[in-house]
């Protein structure tokens, strides 16, 4: 027993020593080449694997997504519209820039946990959590100044002359007040949660 416990640090120590010792039998060139090639493979593989989790097909492979948010989304302007441009789940819910994308993907491990726990595995459970889930997304979009919206929509690129009376007024004010897309455009791609707690005057009941 005592031998084993002494062996373990010895093994780690010897591994550390091997790693620290310069290579004797391999040339610097071959070490660099192997490192370079495996670097490309690992890096490319990592990004490819990450991109595989970054499309609509992957998102709706969970019934939680397919039966709730995706089903609702199919009835909205971002799914079907005059010009035939369609935004898929990651276009709005995953940042385009690499560093932000990796952070979001790490945060998604929490979603895997709740998939395992079955937190929203029925419509009723989903409806009960909808306000909290929606507020999470609203908060994130507010913090990033609606970054994902702006991949396609930009206030500076808008032709106010082509917009309706209501839109011109609201967008001009948004430019002045530095407000962000999600401040007004809530519930445009999925159903709104119960708004009693958000704006009681805009819904029935006291």
């Amino acid at each position, binding site marked *: 027993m005592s031998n084993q416990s002494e062996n373990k640090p010895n093994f780690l120590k010897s591994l550390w020593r091997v790693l620290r010792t310069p290579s004797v039998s391999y040339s610097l060139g071959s070490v660099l080449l192997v490192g370079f090639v495996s670097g490309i493979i690992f890096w490319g593989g990592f990004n490819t694997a990450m991109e595989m989790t970054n499309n609509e097909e992957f998102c709706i492979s969970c019934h939680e997504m397919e039966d709730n948010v995706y089903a609702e989304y199919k*009835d909205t302007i971002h799914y079907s519209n005059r010009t035939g441009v369609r935004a898929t789940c990651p276009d709005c819910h995953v940042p385009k820039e690499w560093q932000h994308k990796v952070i979001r993907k790490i945060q998604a491990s929490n979603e895997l946990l709740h998939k395992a726990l079955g937190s929203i595995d029925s419509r009723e459970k989903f409806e009960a959590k909808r306000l909290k889930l929606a507020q999470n997304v609203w908060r994130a979009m507010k913090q990033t100044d609606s970054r994902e919206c702006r991949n396609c929509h930009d206030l500076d690129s808008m032709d106010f002359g082509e917009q*309706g009376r209501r839109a011109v007024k609201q967008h001009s004010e948004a430019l002045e007040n530095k407000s962000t897309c999600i401040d007004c455009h809530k519930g445009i791609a999925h159903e709104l949660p119960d708004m009693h707690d958000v*704006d009681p*005057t*805009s*819904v*029935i009941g006291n």
Partner: protein
Amino acid sequence: MKYLKIFTILVTILGLGLAFQSRAQEVNSLRGPVDLDQDSNAPEMKKYPKDGKPIARDYVQQPPLVPHTIARYKINLKSNKCLSCHSWKNYRQFDATKISQTHFEDRDNNVLANVSARRYFCTQCHVPQADAKPLVENEFKPVSAITGE
């Protein structure tokens, strides 16, 4: 007499035949005078004006018309897209017409603190208007009390 009888029968058959034929051509169902094996032509879809100034009323107590598109606006127990601009709290921010006070009364004339259930589903009365040719001629004119003329 015999010939007259035969002649009468022939005329009757011919007449009935012609009558049925003309009836067949006149059958005008909801899909129009189109044969069963042919597609009917649906009228062109009307376009609602995207956005405009409030539309003047045509008669007393007419529910004001909606001068903008309301496509995909949802009204259900969880949310009401109309009220997100037209409620008393929000109308100033969005420069919208505010919901009438009459909408806070229930059917027993009790004034509630929020919109009454019987006035909650806006599109039951308030509808957008497309510029469509009237299907039948109409000579209705609003009274001067409304037009101000």
